[in-house]
């Protein structure tokens, strides 16, 4: 068996896994989800989902990844095939490459916006706050900033095609080139080094912005206090506890924020040492992610929006979604703040670090698949990925609605399906006692046995309920979409899936012939 790469240090591994999990969702998606679903009340289903879904799945993904890595497999097709001696296993595992790749196609483009906006902040290129006169409400005040973002990504027109500025395209090229260069340097010298720099820097910038937001004063409301700002998200509305929508949103956020069901953690875990304590490492990763999300993510964007636009303004902004909060409301706030350029630069650089560390994590499964299953060199694997990624990202860049369509199938629906198969194959087919033994091997802390029962019975049922509820709630409206761009995107996804099936078929035939 070919010798595989390994992480250089334990701290490097934990920071890389944290970088994998911490992404744009922590700072943009989380506050919007929480604000839309009862504020403080959202946190109860959120933490219940964290314990019943997040932690068991995190440990299962680390366990499957380490087991697969020890057998020379860095991706789900090989891992599932090793766990389950069935011809179908490797084809189910395709989701572990397909899903991160689809997410990557649009995520890398959004990541490039954060790099661009950090530069725009540093050089004061936003609309000037003093020039905005006569704005009577938050929407009117935000209008120039909305126009700025829409002009940048070319979303202002009425047609089916987006027309981003050459600058937006340039930042996309820079971001993709930087990601490929990091991937080309390898797991330890590339990905690990990036995360050793980016994640501590992210936490320092998060802390600076957190303190700034806690000491903010409102330019519109003299009666504004920190308590008022925090209450927007933390005042509990317990009626939300009885709402299925709140539970679904909370569970969905746990999947998204911890990067579960994507295959990216499986691949990173395949590079750990045989005797690595994955229980402690897994908990540390989840803990760092939650720190970034629950403390920084809940505070920075929303509390400053309440201070500047009041309760109704912040509510309008959160209803418009994550992009509105991050790329429209925040620049408006920074442009009205002393040293706003500096804080804006810090905010978008924080997002860029969160994004780029996730970009390389989403890309690594494809690279690992080529290296492990086709014996290709790292350089060649990264080159193939780069050509595909550059070409296919044009769908997200130019086709209106394409990004949302990919996000639904891969970033919302697909990851729940892969997570379900991971739980069933590891705990029910490979065997619950063997799975438990794999997870706890080398652990210095004694994992309570209750986790065994939660992972075996509760987590798979919880996932099935989410899947059924989403299918019932969202599938009919998604499937009834009929515009041209949606069908072009679906055609692309279907073709990509066929390519994955063919690649797995060829890899396994090749292996049989070589045996």
């Amino acid at each position, binding site marked *: 068996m070919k010798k595989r790469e390994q992480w250089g240090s334990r701290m490097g591994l934990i920071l890389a896994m944290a970088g994998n999990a911490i992404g744009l969702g922590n700072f943009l998606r989380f506050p919007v989800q929480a604000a839309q679903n009862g504020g403080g009340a959202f946190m109860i289903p959120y933490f219940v989902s964290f314990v019943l879904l997040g932690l068991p799945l995190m440990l299962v993904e680390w366990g499957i990844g380490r087991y697969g890595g020890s057998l020379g497999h860095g991706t789900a097709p090989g891992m599932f095939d090793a766990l389950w001696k069935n011809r179908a296993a490797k084809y189910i595992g395709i989701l572990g490459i397909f899903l991160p790749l689809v997410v990557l196609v649009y995520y890398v483009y959004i990541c490039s916006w954060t790099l661009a906006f950090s530069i725009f902040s540093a050089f004061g290129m936003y609309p000037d706050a003093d020039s905005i006169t006569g704005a009577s409400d938050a929407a009117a005040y935000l209008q120039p900033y909305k126009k700025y973002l829409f002009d940048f990504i070319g979303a202002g027109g009425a047609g089916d095609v987006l027309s981003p500025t050459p600058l937006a395209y340039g930042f996309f090229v820079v971001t993709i080139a930087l990601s490929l260069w990091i991937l080309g340097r390898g797991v330890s010298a590339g990905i690990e080094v990036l995360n050793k720099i980016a994640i501590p820097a992210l936490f320092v910038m998060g802390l600076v912005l957190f303190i700034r937001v806690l000491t903010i004063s409102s330019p519109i409301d003299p009666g504004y206090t920190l308590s008022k700002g*925090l209450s927007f998200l*933390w*005042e509990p509305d317990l009626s939300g506890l009885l709402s299925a929508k709140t539970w679904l949103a909370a569970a969905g956020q746990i999947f998204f924020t911890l990067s579960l069901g994507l295959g990216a953690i499986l691949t990173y875990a395949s590079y750990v040492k045989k005797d690595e304590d994955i229980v402690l490492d897994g908990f*540390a990763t989840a803990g760092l992610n*939650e720190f970034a999300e629950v*403390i920084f993510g809940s505070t920075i964007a929303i509390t400053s929006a309440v201070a500047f636009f009041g309760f109704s303004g912040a509510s309008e902004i959160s209803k418009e979604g994550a992009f509105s909060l991050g790329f429209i409301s925040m620049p408006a706030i920074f442009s009205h703040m002393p040293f706003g350029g500096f804080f804006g630069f810090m905010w978008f650089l924080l997002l860029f670090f969160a994004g780029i560390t996730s970009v390389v994590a989403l890309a690594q499964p494809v690279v690992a698949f080529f290296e492990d299953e086709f014996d290709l060199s790292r350089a060649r694997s990264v080159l193939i990925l780069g050509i595909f990624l550059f070409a296919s990202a044009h769908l997200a860049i130019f086709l209106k609605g394409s990004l949302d369509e990919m996000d639904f199938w891969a970033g919302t629906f697909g990851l729940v399906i892969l997570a379900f198969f991971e739980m069933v194959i590891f705990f029910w087919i490979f065997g619950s006692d063997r799975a438990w033994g794999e997870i706890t091997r080398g652990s210095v802390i004694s994992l309570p046995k209750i986790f065994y029962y939660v992972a075996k019975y509760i987590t798979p049922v919880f996932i099935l309920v989410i899947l059924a509820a989403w299918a019932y709630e969202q599938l009919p409206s998604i499937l009834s979409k009929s515009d041209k761009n949606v069908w072009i995107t679906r055609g692309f996804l279907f073709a990509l899936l066929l390519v994955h099936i063919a690649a797995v078929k060829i890899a396994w035939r090749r292996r049989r012939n070589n045996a």
Partner: protein
Amino acid sequence: MTYKGWLFLSASWGMVVTIVAYCFYRLFGSA
């Protein structure tokens, strides 16, 4: 914010800080 809000906030932040502190203590503190 009412006391319930502060309670939610303190419990949530406290839990997260405790998890991180405990994990890092076990990872590196006792070495």
